[in-house]
C-alpha cells in the first residue's frame, strides 16, 4: 500500500467569473522511503498540490489518501489532529516560532502530540546534531541563518516520526551551497527513516536529490522522470 496516494484530484478557483483549475485531475502514488520532487514553473499548481496532500485544502474532485485513509471525509479538527501525527511540514518562510529556541521549536511538535518525553527530547537533540545544529540548541531563530532555520524546520518535520514529509520550496531563500546541503540532508533522512517525502521546487538542480521528479504545468502532471 502506498503511503500517499491521490486519485484524479482537482482544485478549482473561481476568479472574476472565470474558472482556474489550479490542480487538474492529478493522480500519483508515493511509497515509504521514496523522495519525490514536484517541479514546474511558478503558477503551475505545485504548492496547491502540496496543500491538498497536507489536507490544508479540500479537493473539488478526487481523493487524497494517506496510509489508506481518505482526507475527504475528515472535519477541520480531525484533519489538524491527523496532520499532527502523520505529516511533517517545512515551508518557504515563517517556518519557526520566533520566540522559541531551536530545541523548543523542534520539541513543539512533540508537545503538540503530547509525546514530549525523555526519548523524544533525545531524538530532537540527535536530529539537530545530525543537521549540524548541535551547538545552536539554545539559539532563537533570529540568531540563525536562513539555511540553519530550514534545517531546524526539517528536524521539526521529522521529530514526531511522521509517515509523510512535505517541503515547500525549502531552498527558496538559500544560496546554492546551502541549498544543496539542506536538500541532500532532507533526502538522506527521508530515505533512512523510510518516510514518504514530497518536495516542491522550481530549481531543477535540487530535484536531482529526489527519486522521482513530477513536472506540473497549468495544474496537470505533464512529465515524470526517475533520477539516477
Amino acid at each position, binding site marked *: 500500500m502506498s503511503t500517499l496516494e491521490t486519485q484524479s484530484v482537482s482544485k478549482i478557483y473561481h476568479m472574476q467569473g472565470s474558472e482556474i483549475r*489550479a490542480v487538474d485531475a492529478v493522480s500519483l502514488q508515493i511509497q515509504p522511503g521514496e523522495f519525490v520532487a514536484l517541479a514546474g514553473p*511558478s*503558477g*503551475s*499548481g*505545485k*504548492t*496547491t*498540490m*502540496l*496543500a491538498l496532500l*497536507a489536507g*490544508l*485544502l479540500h479537493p473539488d474532485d478526487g481523493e487524497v489518501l494517506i496510509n489508506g485513509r481518505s482526507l475527504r471525509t475528515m472535519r*477541520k*479538527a480531525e484533519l*489538524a*489532529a*491527523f*496532520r*499532527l*501525527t502523520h*505529516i511533517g*511540514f517545512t*515551508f*518557504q*518562510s*515563517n*517556518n*519557526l*516560532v*520566533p*520566540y*522559541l529556541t531551536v530545541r*523548543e521549536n523542534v520539541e513543539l*511538535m512533540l*508537545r*503538540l502530540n503530547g509525546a514530549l518525553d525523555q526519548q523524544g527530547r533525545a531524538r530532537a537533540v540527535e536530529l539537530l546534531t545530525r543537521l549540524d545544529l548541535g551547538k545552536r540548541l539554545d539559539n*532563537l531563530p533570529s540568531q540563525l541563518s536562513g539555511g540553519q532555520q530550514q534545517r531546524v524546520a526539517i528536524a*521539526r518535520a521529522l521529530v514526531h516520526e511522521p509517515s509523510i514529509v512535505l517541503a*515547500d520550496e525549502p531552498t527558496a531563500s538559500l544560496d546554492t551551497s546551502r541549498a544543496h546541503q539542506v536538500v541532500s540532508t532532507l533526502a538522506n533522512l527521508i530515505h533512512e527513516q523510510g518516510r514518504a517525502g514530497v518536495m*516542491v521546487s522550481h530549481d531543477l538542480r535540487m530535484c536531482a536529490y529526489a527519486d522521482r521528479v513530477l513536472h506540473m504545468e497549468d495544474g496537470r502532471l505533464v512529465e515524470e522522470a526517475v533520477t539516477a
Partner: protein
Amino acid sequence: MLPLYLALKEMARNKRRFSAVFLIVALITLLVLFTSALGDGLSLGASEYFDRMGSELVVFQKDVDYQLQASRLGRSRLSQIRRVPGVAAVGPVGVSTAAIIAVNGAATDGLDVALIGVEPGEPGAPAAYAGEALNDSRAAHAVLDRHVVERLGIPLGATITLKVVQGMEEQLYDLRVQGFAEGRKVNYIPSIFVPLRRWERIRPQETPGGNEGADLLFNIAAVKLDQTAPPDAVAAAIERTVSQVEVTDPVTAYRTTQGYNDMQSTISMQQGFMLLIVVLIVGSFFQIQTLQKVAQIGMLEAIGASSRMVITTLLIQIMITLVVGLAIGGAVMWAMAQVLPATVPIVFSGTKITITILSLFAAGPAAAMVAARTILKIEPLRALGLSG
C-alpha cells in the same frame, strides 16, 4: 499546558515589547480610574451632606423648590413634626457660609466653609470619628468634617477663628474643635458643625451677634422615622399636619440642588465616553497585536495545532497582559490618591471600578477573538504567504 507554555515563552522572550504593552494598559487604566474617581468626587461635593445625614426625610419650607438656603423654618414647626405618627426624632439644620482665617491664632490662607447649625444629638448632627460629637447646645464648639481637617491640618482641641459678615462689618468668632466627622460637603464646600444656638449668633446676618429674643430660624428639618410606617406615608402626614412645608427624601433634596443634574449628566457622559473610547482602544490594540501574528498562527495551524489551542494561547496572553496592566494602573492610582492634595476630590466607586475592569477584560479578549476568527478562517496557505 501548551497554550500557557507558549504564552509565557513569548512574553519572557519579548520582555521589552510586553513591558511596553503592560505600561500602555496601566496608563489606560490609570486614565479611566482617575477621571472616574474625579467625576465621582465632584458629584459627591453636591450630595455628601444629605447622603450622610442619617435621616429618612428632609422638611423644607413650601414652594422653595427644595433650595436649601431659600427655605426658612421656625421652632414651632419642629414640635408639630415631632408629633406626627411615624416620626422618631427631628432635628433643625441651619446652613450658611463662613471662612476659617486662623488656627490657634495663626493665620491661614482662608478656607470657605459651610457653617452648619445643628441640635446636638438630634438628626442632622454628625457623629465624630475622632474626638467628640457636639453635646452642648450653646458652647462655642465645632465639629469639622474630614475635608477641613485634611486641608488645614487642624488638631483636636485647636481654636479656629471664623470670619463672617454681619451687617456691614466683618466679625470674627473663635470656636474650639471638639471632634472630626466624615466628609459632609454642601454645595461643593467642606463643612463645620456648631450648635444651632451658636450658629444663630455667628451666621451672616443683619445684626451682629444675632437677636437673642427672636424666634430661632433654621433652613430645614432632618427627620428620623421609627419604621412603623413607610416614609412616603409619613411624608404625606407631615405635609397634611404641618402648614407651609414640603417633605422629601435626602436623595431628592440634593438632586434638586441648582445645577446638580446638569453637572451630573456632564460627568456621567464624560465617564461613559471615556470608558467607551478606552474599551475601543484596548480592543483595537489587541486586535492589531493578534493580526500581526497571521504568519505564526498559519504556521501553527499548518503543522497541526488546533484552532482551540491557538485561541487559548491568545486568550491567556491577553488575560495576563490585562491583569498585570490593571494591577500596575490600580497600584499607581492608589499611590497617587495618597499623595494628591486634599483639594483634589477623588472618590473611588466600587461599582465603577468593577465596570471599568470588567469592560477592559471583555474588550481585549473579544477583539482578539474577532481577529483570531478572521485569521483562522484564512487558509493556512494564505496566512503563510505561499503561492503555487
